[in-house]
């Protein structure tokens, strides 16, 4: 690992000013993605800005919305009685990320800022139509994800919280890589009074995406059988040693059906 200076500001304003004043300064949340990156010398930041002193963790449920602070760990979300009551699928998703020790430190803000194409949270944020709040603005999920490892965040912009509308029913189903525990294909389905939303992670070369065919079928009839005739093109799917593009396209159908059955 290359060396860097370490800073732990006590206010959001201070953190933002360090990050905006130095293009090579980088934020650090749980470190479950960024420290492995540093260890492999894939990044050479001048400064690391630890976000853990900014009071950005916590969960509130009010008026049909669950709001989760950016620094809230996966373990806290998984075990939260409030999240389990309001959106059980979200708590279950958090409880299936990595392993216990990873869940003790990894955060929702870090997961969304990173936008790994195989990460779990992006599918929940997109399927539930959540809003991502930063130190500068509020960003709708539909505008936030812009391809693998790419988001609407500007240089130095800090996620402060994420707000999820509570659906009628929802579920997340993950076909996981047994070694890394990331999603080979993960599907989050959500049923709202206005219709169904379906987001797929792990599968596509463009990162998390909404599945228009599944949404149309499930908006008409929210049942596992409704997914039967819906196809998924293999063209834009990821293919690697774990699963070919054709296999991933096939899995999208299987995993979506399982998710609907679970919701």
């Amino acid at each position, binding site marked *: *690992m*290359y*060396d*860097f*200076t*370490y800073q*732990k500001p006590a206010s959001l304003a201070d953190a933002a000013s360090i990050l905006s004043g130095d293009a090579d300064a980088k934020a*650090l949340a749980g*470190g*479950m993605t960024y*420290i*492995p990156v*540093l*260890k*492999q010398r894939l990044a050479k930041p001048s400064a*690391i800005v*630890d976000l*853990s002193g900014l009071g950005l963790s916590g969960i509130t449920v009010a008026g049909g919305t669950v709001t989760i602070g950016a620094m809230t760990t996966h*373990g806290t979300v998984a075990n939260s009685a409030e999240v389990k009551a309001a959106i059980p699928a979200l708590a279950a998703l958090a409880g299936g990320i*990595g*392993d*216990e*020790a*990873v869940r*003790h*430190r990894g955060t929702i803000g870090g997961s969304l800022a990173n936008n790994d194409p195989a990460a779990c949270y992006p599918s929940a944020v997109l399927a539930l139509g959540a809003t991502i709040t930063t130190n500068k603005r509020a960003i709708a999920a539909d505008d936030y994800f812009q391809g693998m490892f790419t988001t609407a965040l500007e240089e130095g912009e800090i996620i402060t919280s994420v707000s999820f509308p509570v659906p009628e029913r929802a579920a997340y189903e993950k076909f996981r890589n047994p*070694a*890394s*525990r990331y999603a080979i294909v993960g599907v989050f389905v959500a049923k709202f009074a206005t219709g169904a939303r379906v987001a797929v992670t792990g599968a596509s070369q463009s990162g998390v995406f909404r599945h228009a065919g599944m949404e149309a079928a499930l908006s008409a009839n929210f049942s596992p059988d409704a997914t039967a005739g819906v196809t998924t093109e293999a063209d834009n799917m990821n293919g690697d040693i774990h699963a070919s593009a054709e296999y991933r396209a096939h899995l999208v159908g299987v995993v979506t059906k399982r998710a609907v059955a679970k919701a």
Partner: protein
Amino acid sequence: MPQVTLTVNGKQHTVEVEGRTLLVELLREKLGLTGTHVGCDTSQCGACVVHVDGVSAKSCTMLAVQANGTSVTTIEGLAAADGTLHPMQEMFREHHALQCGFCTPGMVMSAIDLVNSNPAGLTEKEIREGLEGNLCRCTGYHNIVKAIAAAAPLMHAK
């Protein structure tokens, strides 16, 4: 150079580190506590698991500076001063839950956290799922699962 003040196994230390020093490097190289192992570069094996403020953390994926002000427990901190083993260590011995022993410190630390966070008890399936972040190349896991199942009631009885 940054200074880190932390409590390790009940004893306070102030140590000079670099920003990039990992917690596991502080433990092994600065404090000589070599019971905590490093088995991978990918944060997947769990050989490095310690407790930070009472919960499991991969010390290979945490900067020493992030541990400033925390209380860390390593495998060396489990046995009583007179050498009496922690019930989890005792049950690992009793049930032959180790062969080469490389994964054992991390296994034991993860197992203790797992038992602590499940006061109502654990099924075999829950134990296996709770060990997702710890890899063992020798035992095939069966005896590790048995050891944890045997240690849980002993720990809760205390």
